[in-house]
């Protein structure tokens, strides 16, 4: 019967990501390529940070709990910084690639805008980090047992799934904000992304208290979402238009041939 837990957690963690992928990315080969490339970049950052982690664990004193805890915090911070570095590297690469694409294409406009790239690569980062954070939990969720024999909360699977969902969406929003900030050279926004990433990662240290890590994470997710929405060209007016179904006139007024 615990297959239901497996599917439940998978749907929670990856439901939004899958929906986004299906409706906005799957149909366009170029976007799929950039998504996978983004995921790969995240993976490389993980490889690097795990290398550092591996070496530092080897040279650390394994008996000292304080040292190990310090090492863990160091590992998290380092990993976050590496991820953001790779996001920047990916941005730079995409800029170069876009120039190339522009040169190749016969048409005047770029086949994919930098905003779309930001969104796609952010989702790629999210997919990969989500997968890595939840896959081995999902693997164990199938088994007959549930967490708790040592006194842990039995909502472990559920909260892990929700955390993963937040991480995936956050990566997407961070991608949008980050790329936009790079484009406009607003470095404070880049710093904001890095800091919020650090905060979210460090919130997981609260973890047996799932409420104290999940609630702030979702608050940050919400704020980042709004920021990303505005960055992507959304506005309150648009939202209102959209919700009050005045879009038909609007569409007619703004109709452009594709």
């Amino acid at each position, binding site marked *: 019967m615990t297959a239901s837990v497996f599917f439940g*957690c998978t749907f929670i963690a990856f439901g939004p990501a899958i929906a986004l992928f299906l409706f906005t990315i799957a149909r366009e080969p170029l976007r799929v390529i950039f998504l996978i490339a983004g995921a790969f970049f995240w993976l490389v950052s*993980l490889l690097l940070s795990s290398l550092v982690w591996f070496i530092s664990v080897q040279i650390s004193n394994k008996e000292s709990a304080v040292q190990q805890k310090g090492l863990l915090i160091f590992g998290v911070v380092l990993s976050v910084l590496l991820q953001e570095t790779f996001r920047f590297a990916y941005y730079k690469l995409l800029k170069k690639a876009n120039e190339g694409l522009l040169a190749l294409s016969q048409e005047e406009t770029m086949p994919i805008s930098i905003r779309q790239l930001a969104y796609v690569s952010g989702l790629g980062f999210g997919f990969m980090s989500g997968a890595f954070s*939840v896959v081995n939990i999902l693997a164990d969720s199938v088994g*007959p*047992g549930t967490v708790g024999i040592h006194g842990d909360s039995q909502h472990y699977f559920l909260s892990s799934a929700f955390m993963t969902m937040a991480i995936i969406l956050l990566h997407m929003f961070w991608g949008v904000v980050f790329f936009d900030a790079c484009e406009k050279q607003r470095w404070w926004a880049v710093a904001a992304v890095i800091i919020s990433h650090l905060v979210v990662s460090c919130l997981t240290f609260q973890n047996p208290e799932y409420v104290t890590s999940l609630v702030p994470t979702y608050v940050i997710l919400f704020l980042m979402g709004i920021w990303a929405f505005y960055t992507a060209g959304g506005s309150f007016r648009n939202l209102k238009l959209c919700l009050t179904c005045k879009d038909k006139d609007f*569409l007619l007024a703004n109709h452009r041939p594709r």
Partner: protein
Amino acid sequence: TRIFQSVNCVKLLYAFLSFAGVSCNSVEKKIYVHLNYTVSCVRLLNATHQIGCQSSLSGNVGVLHVLESEENLDWVLHSGPNPPYMVILESPLFTRSVMMKLKNGSGRVAGVAVVAPNTNPAEGFSPHTTCPNENTGVYSETYEPTMANCNMTVWNPLGNGLSYEEFDFPIFSLKDDNDTQVIRQCYLDHNRAGNGSTPQYPLCAMQLYSHMSAVTDTATCMRRNAINFSLNPEMVCDPLGDQNVWASTRPLNNTAKGHKMWESVVIAAARLDSRSFFFDIAPGAQSGVSGFVTLLAAAHALRNATQEAQPNRTILYTFFQGETFDYIGSSRMVYDMENKQFVVDLDNVHSVLEIGQVGLRADSKLWLHTDPVSRRNESVNKEVEDLIGNLRSAATGLNVTVDVPGFSQPLPPSSFQRFLRARPIPGVVLEDHQSAYTNKFYESMYDNAENLNVSYPPNLTPEEQLEYITDTAVTEVATMVARALYRQAGGEESQLSSIKADPQIVTKMLYSFLVRSNNSWFQQLVPSDFTSYLANRPPNFYVGVVQQSSEPTLLVQYLLANLTGSTINITQDNCKNQREDESDKMYNYMWVQGAAPPNSTEREGYCVRSTARLSKALSPAFDLEQYTSKNFSTWTESRWKFIKGRIFLVASHELEMLTLGVGVGVLLSSLLVTYIISSKADILFSSGREPTNATY
């Protein structure tokens, strides 16, 4: 893989592992506690039946329930709201009535774990049948109808037959230690309901794996072993069997099989094996060890006498393996003798003296059991009378009295019966019981040192325990057996007083076989490659499958070689290659590692020359491919992949369904929202200069 582990580590950082991990601890560790000590009951098969236990392929899972009394069974079988249950039994409840109720528990029982106590139950316990080896002894309907099926004497009245039942759930044994305490605590914390209320989820559950490959009977499983055209041919069962150990007082040419001219042998037999309900625990103290230790001590006592004043008959010491399972060892030896595959044949056999269970004598009495049917023959009767006379005279002056049970009483289950099946050979079986066994724990896990009253004063180190003389009763019996054998072989009466068993050797053997085999004495007597098999616990006397020699077989061979053989001065290479000079085929050579001199750590090995050899103890049924044989043992042991267990909590069905429901809800709503957003992306994200953006 190191890199992969480290990836795992970082993965775990992100896996929100709460403990701010001291090391890489995985989710699995948060969920499961594995049981360290897992001893299971396994499936055995014979010509007609399967016995033992098995789990499903993926292990049986059940909610823990510690059974407090037999009345408490109602919770498991009827009223408990969370079936199936994994029942934890305290050993007093491990009875036939409880087990049979659980067996017929209509699927509400997932498995049973029996907590083995640290002291033996006072009232006795034997999971064996009341009439051991009922159908393969000599007393068949054709031999003597009145004696068939233990009609005259029920040998093991305490036997409840549990070992011969078939259970379709796993049954494990747990030691009464920390593991068991964890299980109990888990039960108390999670599953113990208040007065009349039902326990709340999450509940503590246990999973036991003991999936058995073989099924139905030996014919079926041997056939499936032979079928190998499938994608992954897989063996499903193996015949039970091992090796018999034998030695002779006069060297016999082992390469020439069959009848030996002018040779007359007195067979001194004992059995080596035992069993219990659980395959991994078979201490067999009274049922096996008492007999073969007596015989080993007697053989040792006879070493000098037989070398100095060689009697005119040869004494053949034989230690039969697999006797518990329809006389595997003895039936094979008799079969080999009949078919000229053994070093002597049945014509060479003068008489048989078998040492049965002799460890628990009441009033220091020993009983000489004989076969009334063969004694109807005058000449056989005379030989038997002579043998009894020898035994009686051997007992004089010792603290042993021998007596004969009623003339019409048949033999107790014994290897000698297999010889009688072949022909009426004179013989006596030495036992400590007149009729029913004095052993209250026949073929059970309680037939241990405690049952034989082998105990040590507290605060002794293992080495001091080894040297401590616990028992003289077995020594007395050994002396008597040695003297009787010497007389029976035709030895001089004048020599008798010099034949004495060594109490030091006897108690060392008892210590080694009943308490721990890994001791300084055994280490000296075995070859260096065998030392890894010595353990800090008593050996397991279950015969096991035929492919590998069990630890007791080899131990007894090494002991027999050391106790009856002599040290010779040849090089290690020559010793290992069985080369001395001309007498190659007569002796067996063995390089043992010996002791280290006081000021050195290097052991000084030496070569032991003896007549101690091994012979096959595989039931002839498997050579003849008669898997439904009624004459020979057809026991096989099923193979299995693993035997293990773990405990964990299980979540309620409602929580699981809630998780699934939330998951589906999230998926559907995100599909809907994304669809709406992407279809209205033009409006939503329209303020920018770029026509399209993030979401389309």
